[in-house]
Every structure is written in structure tokens, then in C-alpha cells.
């Protein structure tokens, strides 16, 4: 997807976003100075370990940050409008219609007391002037498109009558039915069976590609992202440590953290009968985000860390090497050499 060379204005431009939580234990800088662009039709993977503030970027864009959380600063420009400064009412018109979101757990995202037909049509009722009959027809068509058999009957069923995978299809249908221009998928397959995960990722990719929707795929699963995304943003402790075109990041990671994430993916070659390479793990755990060490947050877990890493924040800088239309940037004092 990264082939289009034309410099179109981005659909979404996030600049210096800071979303902080004021808790008893201290200030949690869940999102701390994050910037990225998303072109129309682009699929971006937002990757990091759990607790890294990935979801909060999604909720910040949706304007769904609840106290004690707050957007402290930065801009979220969507189609030229700064979402941060919009009123709740204006934001409501954008949610579901322009920007839709898919949640992690399909078992809890659907209201148990309403039929799925009701819940799919609700989005249309909120954002369109369609008649009840038209809404129903659209809902049936949408269910069909997300691969739910016998949609006419299934429309009248309640969420508890569906399996987890089927429910997530329903959630995708709800998100996509108003033809949003941006879809934020927050760990959409994490709660599901491994065998269903790939199916659903394919389905989502197919849906957004067909309708030209941009997508932010929030996940800790770099393997899933590498198959789907055009660009990848790697997040660590609320900050971007590396971003760039997906192939470049997967093939030539420059940040030791990204490298660690890639090395912990089970290789696809594992399917062949050859000797399985040992999976490496990043040593240590994500630090307490309320008490980050000075300098690079990754330094305590990093093999290559030196004195400067423990004192000075690294700056996210474009790497001159391998320059392309999509810049590859990394925030590291000792970026890895491009391996052969």
C-alpha cells in the first residue's frame, strides 16, 4: 500500500499528543508527546507491550478519555479539524460516522439486552436519515459482508446466542456500517481463539480496503501487524520509539526494543520441519510508568545502553539511511546498524 507516491494531505495528523492520568499513585503519562500522520486508505499498526498506552491513543482520538485521564496537550487533526477542541456534541457527530472503533472483547462490547439487529441499526439511526426498512436492509447486507450466515434470522438474535468470533464480526459490522473514514481497532482479536484471529484480521483488512477506510490497528502482536499494515508505529511507555514503513521496520528495525519484539515472534518457517529457532524474549518488564527512569525509558532493559541513555532523552529522528517516501524514524542514541 506504500506505493502511492503522491503527497496527499493526511486524513489524520496527531501532533505532540499528551494524555495523562492523575491517579493516587502518581501521574501516569499514558501518552506523552506522540505524533504521527495517517494517509487516507492507510493501515497503520500501533504496536507495543500491554500497558504501553496504545489504547489511550485510540480513546484520545475518539474523545473518550474519562477522568482521572485528560488530554493535556497536542493536536488531533482529522480532515483538517482539531478534534481536541471540538465540543462533545460535535465529537458525537464524528464518532461512529467518521471514526469508528472496535473493542478488544466482543463478549462485553455488545449490550446483552438488545438484538444485534437493533444494535447494528442504532449506528445508522444515529447518523443517517434512513427509514427503518432501509436500515434493516443495510444491516442484513452488512452482516452478510462480515460473513454471518443467514443474516435475516440472525438479526433477531441476542448477543449471548453468538460465539466470540461471530460477535466480533457483529462488532465489525456495527463499526463499518456507517462507512467511516477511519477505523480504530483496539486489540480486536486478542480475546479470541488463535484459529479465528487470522480470519478476522483478513476480514477487517478486506473491509477497510474495499471501502477505502483508513485503519489504526492497535495490538501487541507484531506478527499480525506485519501482514496487514502499511506503516508501523512502535510505542514504549507512552512514547514513540520507532516508526516507518512496515517492511522497513520488520526487515531493518533500528530500535533495540523493536528488534526485541520482532525476535519474539514465532517464525512462520516454524511450520516446516527444520529445527525451530529459539524465541528470544526482551529481558525485564515494562517499568512502572509513574516512575520512569531519566533518559531513555527502555535503557534498563537494553543491552546496548550506555551512560547517555540513562541521562538524556533520545529524540525521534529520521534515519537518512534507506530514505523513502515514508521516513523511517527512531528514538535511540545507539540505533542498530542496518543488518545485511
Amino acid at each position, binding site marked *: 500500500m506504500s506505493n502511492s507516491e503522491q503527497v496527499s494531505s493526511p486524513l489524520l495528523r496527531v501532533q505532540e499528543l499528551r494524555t495523562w492520568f492523575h491517579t493516587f499513585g502518581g501521574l501516569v503519562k499514558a501518552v506523552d508527546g506522540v505524533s504521527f500522520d495517517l494517509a487516507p486508505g492507510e493501515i497503520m499498526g500501533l504496536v507495543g507491550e500491554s500497558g504501553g498506552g496504545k489504547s489511550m491513543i485510540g480513546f484520545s482520538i*475518539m474523545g473518550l478519555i474519562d477522568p482521572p485521564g485528560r488530554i493535556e496537550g497536542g493536536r488531533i487533526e482529522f480532515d483538517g479539524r482539531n478534534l481536541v477542541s471540538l465540543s462533545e456534541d460535535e465529537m458525537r457527530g464524528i464518532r*461512529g460516522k467518521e471514526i469508528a472503533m472496535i473493542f478488544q472483547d466482543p463478549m462485553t462490547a455488545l*449490550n446483552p*439486552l438488545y438484538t444485534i439487529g437493533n444494535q447494528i441499526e442504532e449506528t445508522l439511526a*444515529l447518523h443517517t436519515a434512513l427509514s427503518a426498512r432501509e436500515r434493516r436492509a443495510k444491516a442484513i447486507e452488512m452482516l452478510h459482508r462480515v460473513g454471518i450466515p443467514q443474516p435475516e434470522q440472525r438479526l433477531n438474535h441476542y448477543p449471548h446466542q453468538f460465539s466470540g468470533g461471530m460477535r466480533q464480526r457483529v462488532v465489525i459490522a456495527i463499526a463499518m456500517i456507517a462507512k467511516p473514514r477511519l477505523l480504530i481497532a483496539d486489540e480486536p482479536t486478542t480475546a479470541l481463539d488463535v484459529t479465528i484471529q487470522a480470519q478476522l484480521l483478513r476480514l477487517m483488512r478486506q473491509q477497510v480496503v474495499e471501502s477505502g477506510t483508513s485503519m489504526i490497528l492497535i495490538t501487541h502482536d507484531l506478527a499480525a501487524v506485519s501482514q496487514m499494515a502499511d506503516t508501523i508505529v512502535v510505542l514504549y511507555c507512552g512514547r514513540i520509539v520507532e516508526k516507518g514503513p512496515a517492511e522497513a521496520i520488520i526487515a531493518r528495525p533500528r530500535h533495540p526494543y523493536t528488534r526485541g519484539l520482532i525476535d519474539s515472534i514465532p517464525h512462520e518457517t516454524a511450520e516446516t520441519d527444520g529445527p525451530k529457532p529459539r524465541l528470544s524474549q526482551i529481558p525485564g518488564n515494562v517499568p512502572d510508568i509513574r516512575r520512569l527512569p531519566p533518559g531513555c525509558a527502555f535503557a534498563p532493559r537494553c543491552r546496548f545502553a550506555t551512560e547517555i541513555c540513562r541521562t538524556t532523552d533520545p529524540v525521534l529522528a529520521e534515519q537518512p539511511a534507506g530514505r523513502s517516501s515514508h521516513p523511517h524514524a527512531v528514538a535511540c542514541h545507539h540505533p542498530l546498524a542496518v543488518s545485511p
Partner: protein
Amino acid sequence: MFGYTIKRLIQMVVVLWAVSVLVFVMMSFTGDPTFMMVPLDATDEQIAQARRILGLDESHLVQYWRFLSNIVQGDFGRSFVFRQPAMTLILERLPATLEIVFLAMVMALLVAIPLGVYAGANPKKPASRAVMAGSLVGISLPGFWLGMVLIFVVAVKLQWLPSSGRGPTTEWLGMRVSFTSWEGFRHLILPAITLSVGTLAILMRIIRAEMVEVMKQDYIKFARAKGATAKVILFKHGLKNALIPLVTVFGLMLGDLIAFATLTETIFAWPGIGKLLVDSIYRGDRPVIVVYLMFVALMFVVVNFIVDVCYALIDPRIKIK
């Protein structure tokens, strides 16, 4: 559904049987009713004869058996005081109690649902905190004392409403009721308010707690992500989920109202079954106490059965097995 009904019916009978045993055991404690029946200067001969007539000379097991078979046949004995079938006394006074209980329940629901929903949906707002503080006062005050305050302020000082008695009644669906006439309704107001306050406060807290819990659910956030209006989120997605558990407390609520009606009716000299019970306890009128107990037990059991069926009808997740 049929199997479930049968199962529940059997359960109901077992509960009622257990209650009958408890009632019987307790009544055996209360001392000898013979002395209620005989003159103060009765000879031993006369006392013994009275005991024979009452069946008290036989073993407890035989007495219980007689007690149970009488109950099953609908014979609860006669009131020692009124010389009437105890059941008749209860049924005569039942409409008066149902009237204030029903009105109190309606008032409690009408006030508690909107306030509880508001406080639950906006837990941080000052108005919600005020509502919660008010409800805490409501569960902390003795209801009968509140009734006395109302009597003193509204009836004695301001003389707006009557302080006691039932006022004129009219025939309605075969019952004598007061709410059909203005004067009768005026008599109804203070007892109903007094009775409703405790239930109202508890209901409000339950609804608020449910609402707080529901508003944290993913489906609420998902509805917000759909762009749903505050109204849709609150009333479509929030309220219905919060109110379902309310159905289950309906039985408890009714129980509380019936129980506290004994106090309310005593204060307002309201001629319902609650006042009958208190009077009968004073007079040691054992058959009336027994009927009251069995009757109230039956009522609770039936109401709880209806509640369970309603619950299954409202919540699609529940299947009656």
C-alpha cells in the same frame, strides 16, 4: 416452562410447610392460651375442660397434625377476641394495607428511579452527592418517627391533613378502599409517605449502584464510540440493564413495606392487617397471629414466583429450565 412451574410450586409448598412448623413451635412458646378463654376464678376442673376443648391436652405431634390439617382445609381457627374466623379478620383488613403499601411503592419508584439513575450516571456531581446523602438519611431514620414528625407538623400544627384513621371508604372491585374519594385520599397521604421513605431510600441506592456498575461496562463505551447521544446511552443502554436487577428486589421491597406497615398503621390508627397484628400480639390472640404469618408467607412466596417469571421474560439471557 411447565416443568419449571411444577418445580417452583413444590418449592413453594416446602417453604410454606417450613413456615408452618416454625409458627407452630413459636406459638407453643407463647404460653398457655387457656387462660385467655376461662374466667379468672375458674376451677382446675374448668381449666382442664378448656384445655381439652382447645386440644392442648394432647401431644405436640398430634397438636401439630391437627394444626396442619386445619390450615390445609383453610380453617385457621377463630380469634379469641373477636370470636370470628381469623382469616375473615385478615381479609377484611387486607385492602386497607394493600392500599397504603401500593401507594407507597408507586411513590418510592417514581422518586427513586429518576434520582437513582441521575446519581449513578453522574456520580461526581454535587447534586448526586446530595441525593446520596439524602438517601442515607432516609435509611437512617426510624420510619415511625418520621410519621410522628409528619403528624405533628402537617396534621397538628398546619392542620392540612388528617392525622389518623382511614376516612370514608367506597366499594371498588369488591374491596373497601379510600383512594376513590378526596377525603379518603387525604387520609391516605401521610401514612403512604411515611411508609415509602425507607423503601425509597434503599431503592435509590440500589439503582444508583447498579447504574454506576452498568456505566462502566464496555457496551456503554461502545455505544459512546458509536456516537450515541447522552440520552440514548442513559436510557436505552444504561437504564434497562440497571433496572433488571431491580425486579429481583421487588419481593424484598414488598416484604419490607408489609413489615413496616405494622408500625405505620399503628401510628396512624390505620385499620389494616399490620395494626391487627400488633393488637393481636398485645392481646395474645394466637390464631390471628398464626393466620397473619401464614398469609404473609404465602404472599411472599407467590410474589417471588411471579418475580422470577418476570425476570426471565425481561432478560433474554435467562432461559427457564
